[in-house]
């Protein structure tokens, strides 16, 4: 399946509000607060953008007692997410969106086959209300971001704009302790350097890959980095380090930095 949109998807997108159809209906998964802040930030929601992909993960051979990246699995997680993301982005492009806010990336395992995973990316396409095109990504397409509407507003008012949802993944096999079993008789607390090294390598690969994506998107930095350690029902010593964040660029003309006021100190009185 390519990224060409199916006919029924094009039909659905046609009814949406665009610059050409100002009277159209918009769809979004915004909460009230999100909606208000996206509007306040000078943007209008157009429609929900969805991309999905059901993926069969290939067989990976590994040795029991070795730390190693499981590159077949790494590539699978990467490729499948990329397919879901690019399909979502194609929908956004077709509806003329400047960007997608609040992207949620989910992974589900199919019950009947542990090699089969479903990836879904869902977010709300938005346009700049005044038709400013400076918010698009470096390739002229819509920006993507997992920031909520509130975070989107905050980011613009920090003097930055989102460019791309960047991610790095590394599926890693942590060696079993067969070779270390003699430790059972040691009565000191000692570091298992081999295990520590596994954490270091896997995390580093994930961060490096994410940083490379940010550099490709010509971004200045990455905000909201989170590293998930997930096992997606693989066997016990296989773990995925998944780094995800939003690549950002400073705003130049869109909001002049001197217009941004300093934040005010408040202390929340609710618990």
């Amino acid at each position, binding site marked *: 399946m390519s990224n060409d949109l199916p006919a029924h998807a094009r039909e659905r997108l046609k009814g949406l509000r665009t610059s050409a159809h100002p009277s159209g209906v918009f769809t979004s998964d915004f*909460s009230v*607060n*999100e909606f*208000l*802040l996206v509007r306040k930030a000078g943007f209008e929601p157009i429609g929900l953008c969805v991309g999905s992909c059901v993926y069969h993960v290939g*067989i990976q051979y590994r040795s029991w007692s070795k*730390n*190693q*990246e499981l590159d*077949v699995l790494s590539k699978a997680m990467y490729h499948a997410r990329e397919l879901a993301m690019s399909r979502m982005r194609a929908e956004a492009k077709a509806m003329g969106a400047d960007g997608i806010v609040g992207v949620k990336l989910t992974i589900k395992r199919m019950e009947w086959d542990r090699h089969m995973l479903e990836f879904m990316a869902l977010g709300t396409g938005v346009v700049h209300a005044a038709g400013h095109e400076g918010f698009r990504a470096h390739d002229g397409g819509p920006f993507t971001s997992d*920031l909520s509407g*509130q*975070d989107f507003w*905050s*980011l613009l008012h*920090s*003097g*930055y704009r989102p460019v791309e949802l960047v991610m790095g993944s590394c599926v890693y096999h942590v060696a079993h*302790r067969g070779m270390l079993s003699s*430790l*059972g008789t040691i*009565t*000191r*607390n*000692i*570091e*298992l*350097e081999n*295990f*520590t*090294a*596994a*954490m*270091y*390598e896997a*995390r*580093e690969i994930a*961060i*490096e890959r994410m*940083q490379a994506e*940010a550099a490709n998107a010509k971004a*200045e930095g*990455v*905000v*909201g*980095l989170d*590293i998930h*350690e997930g*096992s997606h029902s693989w066997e*016990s*010593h296989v*773990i995925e380090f998944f780094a995800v*964040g939003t690549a950002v660029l400073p705003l130049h003309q869109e909001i002049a930095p001197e217009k941004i006021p300093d*934040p*005010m*100190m*408040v*202390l*929340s009185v609710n*618990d």
Partner: protein
Amino acid sequence: MSLFDFFKGQDAETLARQAAADRRRQEIVTAIHRQRLPKHIEARLHDSRDGKSPWIATLTPAELRIVRSHGVRPIAAVSASCWLHYGFSWTRGHRQGWQTALRRLGEEAKAAGANAVLDVKMRTVPIETEDSMDFSLIGTAVKVAGLPPREDPIIATVPALEFVKLLEMGIVPTGIAIGAEYKWLTNWQGGANLFWNGNTEVSALSNLWVRVRERALQLLREDAEEQGGGTLAHTHFSEMFECEGEKQKRYLARYIVIATVVNQVRAKSISPDFRMCLDMRSGPTPLSGTSRHHQSYDSTEREGAI
């Protein structure tokens, strides 16, 4: 890769890639053993320090505002791990494990040219292995303008917003303090077996708790004293077990307390006035902390910043 590929044998490119990965892995093992940073991690941190590659921050967009208003510049995501085998003591291992990870985190921050690490989160990778545990830390290395020069970077387990909130009031979060203690109680006189008694306090076990807790808190104070004035203890973890001994039952009590160390000038008034505000967020708000700061101790489910 399909099953067929496996039998094809490997081409030169694959072999070269594997050799490079092996060299990298060996470098990490050597670096950990010699207590230095792995070379490629150091190189990445240097690139971030010199602005050659994009900065990476765990900060939220709202926290990016303090970049502008408080002179905090994010540089790189830094992380550290220590996987410890408990030959001697699980409980005391926690102190050793976190402290090793903290030292390594500080080294990464130095390589990134930072004078503070904010938003430090404590993590444990969910892999079950016998008698061992992973102690991982992840945070954002930053350069805070106007901070007095110091040899080791500040390590703050608070999010960036809380960090500047404290700074504005003249309080500097400086590090993490850990107190961990365990004690065994052998049930010699049957003091813990009160089957025939009515409602009554099990004094033997009450006293055991007191002794363990007092000692853990004392260790916490000693650890904090070296770093600064006070602690904000965000994590309390405690467990008690009954074990079968050779003749008598034995009881094990353990107590682990982890705190953010803060340095303050006593009796100084808190300067800015507070204002009530309407929070536009749904769910957790940065006003009361942005995210869970540890997931290593399951029994303490309290979330948010300290």
